[in-house]
């Protein structure tokens, strides 16, 4: 088995193990994250979404790194046949490649879906710019009753004419500040990254983490809008007003639902309680770094042997 599928296999197993671990502790993790300010929470959720990759890469690097240590120490061990060793790659194996491809398939699927979304976003953005009236720096007025930001590298804000016509100037200022916040912070990129990273998580955990990320990003921009109009309740009222305008369908149908994010955002805007934890990202990065060092020092050799055993078992 050649080096590439071996590395992918070890990476896939460690990523999967980390995914299971995260799914096990997801509830307390989400509870802790919920106590953070929105912008920091979004960073925290992204870190949790990326944690399986970080853990997997650290463990794979530690397992591979042992090849170097053994070589420096002059130890040529018995990993000649398994092909996992950096210096003693054995011949290729069809099974290895098949397993590596299967392990990569969820990521491939997510990348394909993302590429499709990016393409559609680009097409929509070009089409909407063609019919828009320019309001300012990357901000456009379009027909309709929606307000949104679209694009990932250089996002554009689009505001519906109907909103501008019907809403109070304070509400419009809140909406504009909210969407401009998304644009300036490139939140669409964070949303895309979150969906990409969620590809390796268990479905239920992925849904919860992506929903939590979306809510955190929306609430972060609600806070920005509140600071701009200097009234949190104006932002809350703007949310209700836009939901009412968007829901006025020609067929007059009504549904028995309210988007969970809308209720959570209004609750947060109406409450004065400030989130408790201020600097979570630093703590999380520190914890991951400590984990990597500890894994390297304490279990490097065992990890290397376990990786060899895994590769042998598969081949």
């Amino acid at each position: 088995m050649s080096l590439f599928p071996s590395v992918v296999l070890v990476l896939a197993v460690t990523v999967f193990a980390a995914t299971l671990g995260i799914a096990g502790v997801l509830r307390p993790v989400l509870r802790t994250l919920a106590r953070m300010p929105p912008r920091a929470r979004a960073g925290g959720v992204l870190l949790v979404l990326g944690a399986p990759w970080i853990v997997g890469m650290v463990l794979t690097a530690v397992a591979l790194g042992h090849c170097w240590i053994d070589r420096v120490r002059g130890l040529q061990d018995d990993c000649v046949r398994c092909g996992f060793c950096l210096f003693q790659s054995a011949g290729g194996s069809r099974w290895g490649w098949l397993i590596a491809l299967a392990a990569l398939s969820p990521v491939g699927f997510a990348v394909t879906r993302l590429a499709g979304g990016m393409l559609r976003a680009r097409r929509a953005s070009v089409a909407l710019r063609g019919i828009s009236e320019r309001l300012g720096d990357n901000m456009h007025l379009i027909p309709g009753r929606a307000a949104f930001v679209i694009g990932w590298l250089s996002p554009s804000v689009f505001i519906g004419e109907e909103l501008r016509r019907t809403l109070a100037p304070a509400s419009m200022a809140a909406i504009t500040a909210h969407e401009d916040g998304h644009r300036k912070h490139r939140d669409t990129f964070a949303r895309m990254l979150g969906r990409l990273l969620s590809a390796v998580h268990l479905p239920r955990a992925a849904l919860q983490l992506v929903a939590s990320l979306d809510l955190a990003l929306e609430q972060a921009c609600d806070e920005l809008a509140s600071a701009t109009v200097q009234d949190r309740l104006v932002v809350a009222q703007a949310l209700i007003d836009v939901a009412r305008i968007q829901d006025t369908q020609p067929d007059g149908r009504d549904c028995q639902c309210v988007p969970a994010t809308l209720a959570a955002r209004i609750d947060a805007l109406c409450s004065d309680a400030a989130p408790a934890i201020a600097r979570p990202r630093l703590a999380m990065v520190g914890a991951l770094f400590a984990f990597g060092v500890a894994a390297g020092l304490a279990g490097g050799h065992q990890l290397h042997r376990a990786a060899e055993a895994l590769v042998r078992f598969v081949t």
Partner: protein
Amino acid sequence: MKIPLLGELEMSALELLWQRGTADAKEVHSAIGVSRSITLSTIQSTLERLNRKRLLMRERVGHAYHYAPVLGRAEFRAHAMANALSDLRGADAAGVMAAFVDLVARTDRTKLDDLEKIIGRARDKRQARR
């Protein structure tokens, strides 16, 4: 009606024809081509392209074609917006778009009333504090 993606020059030509109702290539060139340092043949091919895309109709008057828009400005924008909506849904699913209020989700009006009551109570609480 499917509205194809249009370039900046095509949009300018359409805008001009919406204002004037009808014009030939020379008139369009003097209005939007000269300031851009674009030749008459570029304007002619732009108008022909718009005609092929079924956005302009043309009628031969003497030696020249006179062009007129097929759709009015409002109709065109409504069709383009409807076309863009399906792309927006795809972009939203991939996370490349963030709306102020979810574009796809429908909302129960009585629940919106309940949420508005929460805002009202918060406003009352604030006024009581002052």
